[in-house]
């Protein structure tokens, strides 16, 4: 299994796709941080005080999880799009193992994206707060839990991407389905008149990872539920789609 995960990590490192997504994450985080610095402290915006630090860690979470999801989708569907599925499955005829290795490798890639985003956010945010004369404690429990949550949600969104693409071979359709679901999920509880439903849906569960509140599940429960969604998709996709004839 280690061999297969290493092979998947090598796949990620040897095309421009993952590098591009990484660069995009860094750039977008920097952009958002700039915007935050410009508007912070204005009426209706977060105050510039030590309490802002945990929020800065997850400042680019929205785009970050979308990038992670796309990276996961590309990692799986690319095999079919480019026909590399044939050599891949010749080396590893048990296709479920390939999907499992992709899940692990892309989860690690998701963690890397989250780390890059957090480093950029804090790299810009800490000097800025210091220049405003705000004393900040970086080794703060809240900051730590946000960092952990950001890494987890990014990793699990990449896993969700693998699951989506295992189920929907077409790259564009799989990405579109993922993004569309995020929108639908926002509306669903209201449409169904079930306000409590949201926390049980994938993105609602994921939200607990980076900001647990009375409206969400606990961080652990949300994380596990969200992981279960991604893994369930990957399992169903492997069983019914990935194992199909490769002609």
């Amino acid at each position: 299994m280690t061999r297969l995960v290493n092979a998947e990590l090598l796949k990620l490192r040897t095309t421009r796709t993952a590098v591009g997504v990484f660069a995009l994450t860094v750039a977008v985080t920097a952009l958002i941080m700039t915007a935050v610095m410009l508007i912070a402290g204005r009426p209706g915006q977060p105050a510039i005080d030590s309490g802002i630090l945990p929020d800065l860690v997850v400042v680019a979470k929205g785009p970050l999880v979308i990038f992670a999801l796309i990276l996961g989708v590309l990692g799986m569907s690319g095999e079919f799009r480019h026909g590399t599925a044939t050599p891949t499955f010749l080396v590893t005829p048990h296709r479920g193992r390939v999907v499992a290795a992709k899940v692990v490798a892309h989860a690690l890639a998701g963690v890397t994206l989250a780390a890059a985003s957090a480093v950029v956010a804090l790299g810009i945010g800490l000097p800025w707060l210091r220049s405003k004369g705000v004393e900040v404690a970086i080794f703060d429990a809240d900051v730590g839990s946000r960092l952990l949550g950001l890494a987890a949600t990014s990793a699990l969104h990449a896993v969700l991407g693998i699951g989506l693409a295992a189920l929907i071979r077409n790259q564009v359709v799989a990405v579109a389905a993922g993004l569309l679901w995020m929108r639908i999920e926002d509306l669903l509880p209201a449409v169904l008149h079930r306000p409590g439903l949201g926390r049980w849906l994938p993105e609602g569960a994921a939200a607990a990872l980076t900001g647990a509140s009375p409206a969400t599940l606990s961080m652990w429960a949300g994380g596990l539920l969200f992981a279960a969604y991604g893994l369930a998709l990957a399992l169903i996709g492997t069983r019914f789609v990935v194992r199909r004839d490769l002609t």
Partner: protein
Amino acid sequence: MSAINVHGLSKRFGDVLAVDGLGFDVEEGTVVGFLGPNGAGKTTTLRMLLGLVAPTAGTATFAGRAYRELPAPTRMVGAVLEASGFHPGRSARNHLRVLATAAGLPGSRVDEVLGQVGLADAAGRRVGGFSLGMRQRLGLAAALLGDPGVLLLDEPANGLDPEGIHWLRGLIRRQADEGRTVLVSSHLLAEVAQTVDQVVIIARGRLVAHSTLADLTAGAAAAVRVRTPQAEALRDRLAAGGAAVQLDGPDKLVVTGVTTEQVGRAAAAAGIVLHEMRFERSNLEEVFLELTNHGGNRS
């Protein structure tokens, strides 16, 4: 000991029966041409052997074991398949490094096989810029990565220039000389005739012939062509002896069912002058066409 066993193998794609009760064995250490017109079911058969396509019925194994049951498939079987792909943005070397990593093969094999297929100089280039011939070589490099005892090559000559085809023949021959088993598919008999020990010919998913090349041509129709100013006299003489004779111009005959000796003797006995006589066998390509078209037109 046979290296490849195909038994009662069938595959249905919707309404199309692509492979229909196919059966043949390939002996260890032989080079076998797997022949048939386009659409005969060659690729589907190879993909079933490799576990990429699930058979509707029957089995396709390597010495009795399904591909997915092989403990280290890449070390036992190497395959070049037509639709086998490459990520256009990945270099040739990295493509092979990925496969070697997943297969647990030493990284040194990557440069060895790149050299073997003549791609050492292009190893660092991205595959997107490769010609069809270079991609075919890279596919071969991937197949050779695990130094396997059995090679399955699906139309490996596609996209190769004449020099490349010559090189490919040499490569297949060297693999065979080292005792490897090679099953090489083609829709052109002439392409593999110089390389193979045996042929398995299929049409419409069914086996139509499995023999050595010599046996294949021995069974083919043969004729004696004669040029003589007394064509009609010789015709009557031979026809009386039971041969099938056809006049092919004012001074030419085509005689079947006799040897040149018999024709010569008949001519001498009747005092007939012969200007030319030669024995002619249908060539391989004609035999192949006849076999694969037998039993109606291809759909």
